[in-house]
């Protein structure tokens, strides 16, 4: 919380993007989260990513559930559409919104509690449907908003602020999503924007459900010694396995390709993801290889980070179901509601 708002004055040398906007034009209201919350850094990374992608703010729809993490859409893209869903129901709302208007860019923000506890079922179905969206889980291992109870992502052995130990197995959203056939999976850290921003950019351009799990420490309830989701613990155990650059369609590819299984993946809009560094024998387009790797790291007490998996030929929900191309709001009324005579005809088919 802060009393003054972030003043509108800006650095006169701030770069502008293709729309003539600066990164500051993508900001939203002033954050009311605790000072130092990882979620605020993720907000800053989102702002940087949408700025760099030249996204028109009014073509973005922000969706979220309930939690500190779910409050964050208020703090970026003040000129975008927004929907704050009931706890855990954001994936369902997103699927519905996408069906009604496939032209908007969907950006969902959720928490580990919102997605992995109460909303787990909805998340699974959105993955399965391959709804075209960026789905961010700001993962801090606790229910921050309700004062720090363990969430479903809390590791075995991690301790709460009051010293209690968690004994239940965690749900790793990356594992879960890979099992459910997710078409894009990545993990980042709020304290490392250098690697988070390109992941977010690739995810926003992905033609399907892009799950990005971001370790985002809760300074108020889960940043103490004994926590496995603190800033320090994350820094000590994060294994930045897969380094990837996101390269927009027209840009020249300059990143040097290191030997050892490095490759590029072209996305549906012509942009490419260039993998700069992957572990030996790792194939970011092979689901089994990725699943094995992530599990292996987890057994070693490490957290695998980076743009872990991408399915090049991903077919998103609307394409797959052959729904109408145009957004419902743009259809002429006669087409949207063809009248009772046409209804009669349809009903006759079922007699």
């Amino acid at each position: 919380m802060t009393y003054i708002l972030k003043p509108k004055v800006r650095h006169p040398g701030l770069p502008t993007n293709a729309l003539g906007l600066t990164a500051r034009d993508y900001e939203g209201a002033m954050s009311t989260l605790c000072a130092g919350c990882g979620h605020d850094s993720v907000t800053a990374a989102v702002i940087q990513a949408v700025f760099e992608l030249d996204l028109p703010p009014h073509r973005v729809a922000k969706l979220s559930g309930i939690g500190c993490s779910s409050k964050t859409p208020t703090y970026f893209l003040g000129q975008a559409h927004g929907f704050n869903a009931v706890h855990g129901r954001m994936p369902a709302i997103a699927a519905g919104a996408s069906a009604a208007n496939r032209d908007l860019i969907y950006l969902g923000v959720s928490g580990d509690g919102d997605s992995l506890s109460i909303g787990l079922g909805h998340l699974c179905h959105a993955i399965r449907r391959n709804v075209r969206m960026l789905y961010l889980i700001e993962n801090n291992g606790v229910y921050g908003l309700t004062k720090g109870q363990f969430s479903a992502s809390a590791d075995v052995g991690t301790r709460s602020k009051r010293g209690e130990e968690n004994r239940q197995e965690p749900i790793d959203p990356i594992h879960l999503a890979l099992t459910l056939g997710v078409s894009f999976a990545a993990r980042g850290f709020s304290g490392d924007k250098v690697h988070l921003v390109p992941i977010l950019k690739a995810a926003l351009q992905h033609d399907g459900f892009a799950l990005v799990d971001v370790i985002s420490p809760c300074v108020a309830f889960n940043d103490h010694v004994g926590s496995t989701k603190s800033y320090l613990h994350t820094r000590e155990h994060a294994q930045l396995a897969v380094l990837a650059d996101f390269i927009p369609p027209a840009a020249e590819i300059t990143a040097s390709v290191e030997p050892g299984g490095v490759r590029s993946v072209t996305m549906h809009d012509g942009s490419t993801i260039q993998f700069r560094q992957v572990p030996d024998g790792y194939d970011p387009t092979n689901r089994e290889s990725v699943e094995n790797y992530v599990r292996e790291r987890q057994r070693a007490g490490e957290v695998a980070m980076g743009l872990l998996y991408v399915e090049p030929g991903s077919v998103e929900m609307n394409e797959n179901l052959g729904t109408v191309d145009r957004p419902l709001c743009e259809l002429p009324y006669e087409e949207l509601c063809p009248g009772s005579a046409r209804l009669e005809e349809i009903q006759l088919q079922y007699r």
Partner: protein
Amino acid sequence: MRPTDVSDPQYYHRVVDCQWGCPAHTNVPEYIRLVAQGRFTEAYLLNRKSNVFPGILGRTCDRPCEPACRRTRLDGEPVAICRLKRVAADLRDDELMRAHLPQIPEAKNGKRILCIGAGSASLTVANDLLPLGYEVTIYEKLARAGGLMWNNIPQFRLPPRVLDEEIGMILDMGVDLRSNHPVESLASVLDEGWDAIFIGSGAPRGKELDLPGRHDTDRIHIGIDWLQSIAFGHIDSIEPRVLVIGVGNTAMDCCRSAKRLGATDVKVMARRSRPHFKASPWELEDAEEELVEVIENYSPRRFIVEDGVLTGMEFDIVEWYEQDGRSRSRTLDTVTIPCDAVIVAIGQEAAFPWIEKDIGIELDRWGNPVVDRTTFQTTRDGVFVGGDAAWGPENIIWAVEHGHQAAISIDRYCQSQPLDDRPAYGMNLVSQKMGMHEWSYGNDYDAAQRARMTHVGLEERLATLEVEVELGFDAKQTLREAARCLNCDVQTDFTDELCIECDACVDVCPVNCLTIAPDGEEDEVRLNLTAPALNSDQALFASGPLPQTARLMLKDEDLCIHCGLCAERCPTAAWDMGKFDLLIPYAGLLPGHDHTPRGPALPILNPTVPTLVSSAAGGAA
């Protein structure tokens, strides 16, 4: 990069652009806050401590602080620092202020000092030495003390009342002023046995324009002499058509004075184009507001005098171009401009016909004494020079700073201490945190544009010489303008060990000052910040290695608006906002110390403020 040493007072001093830019290092943001709180007397005293003449300077200062002001780099226009100083001078409680002037000891220390010339430099020397028990005598050529401040700066810019008050404050400390006492031989003055001599005789000689016809008429005047004759009341009119040659500040005072003495058609003739004009932009603006015509690229050729009567002046119309990296002119045409009088204002210089060559004072090839830049001493021990006399014409605030430095030297000389060993600056840094999100200063950014000064109407002001043109700021303008100040003295104060590298400060900073990045060479690091730090006049702060990753916290000081948001968003209070106070050494005083005030520390009398004078202003008690 090496971790920044913020214990060096000059580091934070440099962040306070205005204070750094002020030759006397006036604590600008502190007095602006005092003015905004209605604590005018304290604001006045704080000013007086460093610049000695707040009322005079609040109207006439060359204000090097303003082009330096950080606000310019953000919204194009500096805070009206100078005019806020005038507010403090205008609205101070005089009785209260006087109670806080230094006490002059009755028992003298036995050292007798002579100042030559009673201008701003000498008066500052007297101001600094009298409270220490020195006896100070001033020999002044003219009938009054004040130098160019009274005999050249016109009354419509600087009312005599203001001048008399502030000069009087110093004379009343016990100066032995000998007016109408020109020094004609330094050797004989040396024989009088002074313990030290300060030469503050200014640069009193106006430059000549030796063109054909110059001496064939009495209608051609030298600017500074002409202005002096007005001040003495020897001149009270001028012919209708006047040409002023030159386009510096003296020329501006000449053309504006001519307008008031009856001239109807006044032209300022410039050899070059506007970007090369020496006059301060605001002085030029004021002259043009008074319908003075400014003509560019006219180079004077000769005066036209027919039967002993000046009828005009001949000029080459020139065009400037670059050749071999130098600016050259070519003549396009030659024209005659009719006129009845000409005022030549093309510069001034010091002149020392009265310094003998064989008294141990080395003179340079122009006949000026060689003066040490730090000690202000000549090559003869115990003889010092300052103000315009030292290195040619500058301005009042430089003369004041020279006076302070020379006073330090004179004191050290008289106490047999080495002159080169200058007393060190000190600093205080005090946290301004008042609560969770509360600071002792207004930390929000006010987007207001610079307040415009209200001027007296043209007709009224041109009717006489005495009407002061600027009305000063009213309460509303004062508050609005004070709120534009960015409080650059409230510094971001970082503690390496506390940082958990959460990025909160980096993300919230509205002007992208902060970056957490790996170490590197400064040139390289500067280009890879959140926003590139291209202004190398401003420092790049670097912390030591941070606890978690050994990266550095970097801060480009260039555009910080001192909003304190970094400190508010920091979960561990690794950032704090600390008010920096530069402790400036003055003659015989340790940095941060003050002379004993004359009267008791009275409660402030300004009705708006219930505080005690001695509480905050540093310079007050």
